[in-house]
């Protein structure tokens, strides 16, 4: 069904399309540029030049590796929520809070009515598209996650904050589509956090995607999926990009009990370990998924964004993804 939708959009992908979840690690030269910019040693223009250079690096690298659906690598983002909060009005930048271990992010504070003032990611998408002829995903963070990962001071409750965000984020989706984006990923890693709020996440996703001509993916990770499955299939998207390796492919058990009805971007490498999985491990994970899902429905990628890995580790993990998918593809052809 979704493959036909892709073809209708003019996108023809091989079996087991490979992609990545979105972020790649920032190369050292960009980390230095960001530090210099923070210390006011370089201009915003100089920082953007480094961000463009890093974006080109990752586009070239994905092409070299043979990835099928590319991302821009998010070289310009601080993190997935703070970046959008910076461009939407109604937010104030909050201080650092920890996400895990030694990782921290600036958690935004909603202090006023949220409003989309201008395109946020579109220029970066256009820049990256100009560097490749391969399909390129538009990448956004969804309204439920932006709401959940922000402090809410302005809105009276979480639902009203979420729906207000959804209305504004739709404008960014429309802007991406207007520029030619055909595959758009709406990251909603917070979806599984409060099962009782799944209807709010679904309602918000309808606001974002209904009636728009694109193939929609949503990325969800690190949660209690058993609490939201199969109801989460009501999210109006074509493809679920799920972290599977970190949890030992536990979700496949759920899919055996109740059929998974969408396309699945299957996380086959763990992004929170320095260890790079060998090809046999990745292939085995794919084969286990194939016992439960039709091959036409499976995309292959890492569990989550690779930004927490080193550049070398990220490349090696993407290599493992691509090699395993190609091997399986070849076997399917034989």
């Amino acid at each position, binding site marked *: 069904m979704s493959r036909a939708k892709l073809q209708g959009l003019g996108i023809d992908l091989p079996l087991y399309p490979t992609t990545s979840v979105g972020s790649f690690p920032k190369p050292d030269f960009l980390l230095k540029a960001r530090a210099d910019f923070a210390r006011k040693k370089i201009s915003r223009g100089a920082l953007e030049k480094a961000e463009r250079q890093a974006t080109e690096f990752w586009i070239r690298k994905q092409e070299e590796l043979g990835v099928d659906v590319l991302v821009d690598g998010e070289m310009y983002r601080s993190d997935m929520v703070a970046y959008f909060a910076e461009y939407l009005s109604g937010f104030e930048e*909050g*201080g*650092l*809070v*920890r*996400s*895990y*271990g*030694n990782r*921290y992010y600036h*958690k935004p*504070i909603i202090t006023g009515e949220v409003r989309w003032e201008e395109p946020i990611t579109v220029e970066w998408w256009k820049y990256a598209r100009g560097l490749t002829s391969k399909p390129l995903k538009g990448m956004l963070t969804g309204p439920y996650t932006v709401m*959940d*990962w922000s*402090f*809410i*001071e302005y809105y009276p409750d979480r639902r009203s904050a979420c729906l207000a965000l959804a209305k504004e984020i739709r404008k960014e989706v429309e802007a991406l589509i207007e520029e030619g984006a055909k595959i758009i990923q709406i990251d909603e890693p*917070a979806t*599984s*956090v*409060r099962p009782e709020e799944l209807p709010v996440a679904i309602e918000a996703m309808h606001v974002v995607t209904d009636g728009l001509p694109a193939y929609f993916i949503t990325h969800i990770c*690190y*949660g*209690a999926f058993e609490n939201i499955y199969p109801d989460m299939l009501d999210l109006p998207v074509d493809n679920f990009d799920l972290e599977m390796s*970190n*949890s030992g492919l536990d979700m496949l058990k759920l899919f055996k009990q109740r059929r998974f009805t969408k396309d699945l971007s299957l996380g086959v490498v*763990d992004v*929170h*370990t320095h260890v790079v999985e060998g090809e046999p491990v990745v292939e085995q994970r794919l084969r286990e998924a194939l016992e439960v899902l039709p091959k036409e429905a499976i995309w292959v990628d890492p569990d989550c964004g690779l930004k927490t890995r080193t550049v070398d580790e990220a490349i090696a993990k993407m290599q493992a993804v691509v090699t395993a998918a190609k091997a399986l593809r070849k076997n399917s052809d034989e």
Partner: protein
Amino acid sequence: MELTLCNHSSYPRIGDDAEHQLLRRTLAQWDKGERTEEAVQAAQDRMTELALAEQAAAGLDLVTDGQIRWSDPISHLAAKLSGVRINGLLRFFDTNFYFRQPVVQDKPARTAPLLLDEFKFAREKSLRPVKVVLTGPYTLARHSIEENGGAGGFDRMLEAYTAALATEVAALAAAGATVIQVEEPALLKYPDDFPRLEQSLTALAMSKASAQLALVLYFGDPVPIYDHLQTLPVDLLGLDFTYSPGLIDRVASIGTARTLALGLVDGRNTRLEDPAALARQLEKLAHGADLKRAYLSPSCGLEYLPRDRARQKLRHLTAIRNTFLGSPA
């Protein structure tokens, strides 16, 4: 009603200025092999001192070490036990904070102190009495997975965690800890497991000597089990009032057999509460439940807030107490 101001448990181990980046920077360098374990410990010591000082400056009567050294509420303890290895990341309740999951391969056992050195350091450096905080056996067991039946099932795993932590409670009490807080938020997700928790807490209570034992619940509504909580062998009961609009009425109507720690100040949101509104709630509790004494604290650990807002929330406790004391009796 006499109100003692206290921190809940954690405190941000980072801030936005350079001084507060010390631990993050040192750990990142250690991860690359550029710094030693000793350097990491020195950074943890320094950040702990800052957390203690900020709590004292905010006017608290009872402080914690801020759990600065904790990688997360689960693996910090579980990783120190034999029979346990630490696995991938999972979300901690409904927060956007992640813990590493313990994999129990054999019965967890305490082979060395877990928090003793951390407590001793904090007590030495603190201007105020220090409360020790540990994640309880039930919550540890609920966040663990068993590998190849290594623990002999959930109940055996819980027993083993309980035995390990009971030994730690005894060691902490012997070292002079006066308040030992056991956090069991998982109970609110599995209230039917109350008998299991009761059994586990009874074992801990037998080890506490003269220390006061506090049971603290958060991230859920305790109203359905509030009556049962009154029967537990603990001295203090800490409750999160932000998840339960009915909790104040429940406490006010039936009172309490335990000293309460009132988690009325939201530790999860930056919005500052109206002191007058909270003073009215305190008044309702004081009169309805005939409370003579209580602790006033945030609803949960403050690590979920940026440092400046965490500091504000602690200072706010004083403002709320002042408003309450100034309000008509």
